[in-house]
């Protein structure tokens, strides 16, 4: 039996849900890569918890995408049987962990968006998305708090931790613009009240990130050209490597169960 990559009929809402599901799965998987490598046992558990929260969000979203698509796909097929160009996640989410400071900075940038995003989505006209949002909002609020506390301590810590935290800011900043993109298909969903306009979350994100960076004595880069492409499947080389690990078992032994 061979299993090739699945095809997905990406209606605007299916595509929208897959984009958010992929963000959560890929970032969650990245955090799982810390298992066995955490700086201290306590932090390893924290990273694992956050990763599991995100993978849980991804599962709910994939299950909803499967229901919307109605083509016999399910969460496992979306996760294990799509190639990198079919993944719709933010480039920020697939960015390698780097050092602990980079991981926390990436988490801060994402969570500072996810927190107000899910809060706003809780009043979506789509009942399923509203329910997923209500659960995810509490999780994201904690992720934001955890990442903020670490960024503040690393930035306002030793000379070396400050330097490395600043490098993380500079390196990741160009990946933050993609979160606020909204293409034509999404704009129609915004107009219908199904989803929120990400541009409306910009001020909240700027406020949160600005205040954390300033407490961390870190310099906020000037916003210039932003990386983009993840939403339409144009990914960095890092995603392919991530998927080759994550999908290894299902690709090598198709349909394996245990």
């Amino acid at each position, binding site marked *: 039996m061979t299993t090739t990559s699945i095809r997905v009929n990406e209606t605007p809402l299916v595509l929208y849900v897959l984009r958010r599901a992929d963000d959560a799965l890929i970032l969650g998987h990245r955090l799982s890569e810390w298992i066995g490598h955490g700086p*201290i*046992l*306590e*932090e390893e*558990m*924290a990273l694992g*918890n956050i990763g599991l929260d995100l993978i849980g969000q991804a599962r709910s979203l994939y299950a909803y995408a499967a229901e919307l698509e109605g083509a016999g796909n399910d969460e496992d097929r979306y996760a294990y049987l799509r190639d990198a160009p079919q993944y719709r996640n933010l480039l920020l989410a697939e960015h390698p962990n780097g050092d602990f400071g980079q991981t926390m900075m990436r988490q801060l940038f994402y969570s500072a968006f996810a927190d107000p995003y899910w809060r706003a989505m809780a009043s979506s006209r789509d009942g399923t998305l509203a329910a997923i949002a209500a659960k995810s909002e509490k999780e994201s609020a*904690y992720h934001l*708090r*955890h990442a903020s*506390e*670490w960024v503040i*301590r690393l930035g306002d810590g030793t000379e070396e931790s400050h330097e490395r935290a600043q490098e993380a800011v500079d390196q990741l900043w160009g990946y933050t613009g993609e979160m606020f993109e909204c293409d034509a298909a999404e704009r129609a969903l915004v107009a219908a009240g199904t989803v929120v306009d990400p541009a409306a979350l910009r001020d909240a994100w700027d406020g949160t990130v600005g205040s954390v960076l300033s407490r961390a004595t870190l310099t906020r880069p000037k916003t210039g050209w932003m990386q983009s492409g993840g939403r339409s499947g144009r990914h960095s080389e890092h995603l392919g490597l991530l998927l080759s690990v994550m999908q290894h078992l299902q690709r090598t032994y198709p349909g394996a169960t245990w």
Partner: protein
Amino acid sequence: MTPGQKTPNTPLWEVFIRSRNGLAHKHVGSLHAADATLALQAARDLYTRRGEGLSIWIVPSGAIIASDPADKGMMFEPTVSKVYRHPTFYDVPDEVGHM
């Protein structure tokens, strides 16, 4: 910082969890963390993953004053012979019901 501490950057903290309203905080374990805020977060992540708690207390381990195990005889043995301190010598009237 307690002298001779093995992990000066991440001292030891004791964790107490209250599982329900009306119950007391109960000692559940300890952890290492850089400061009180991170200790509270670590306690949440380590000790409340399965819905164990509604409230967390964190105490620096160094702030706990403990009895010396060597004093066991002086501290605790004198009570062994004083069974009359247990409220087991009274008949509870039936009307009181279950206590």
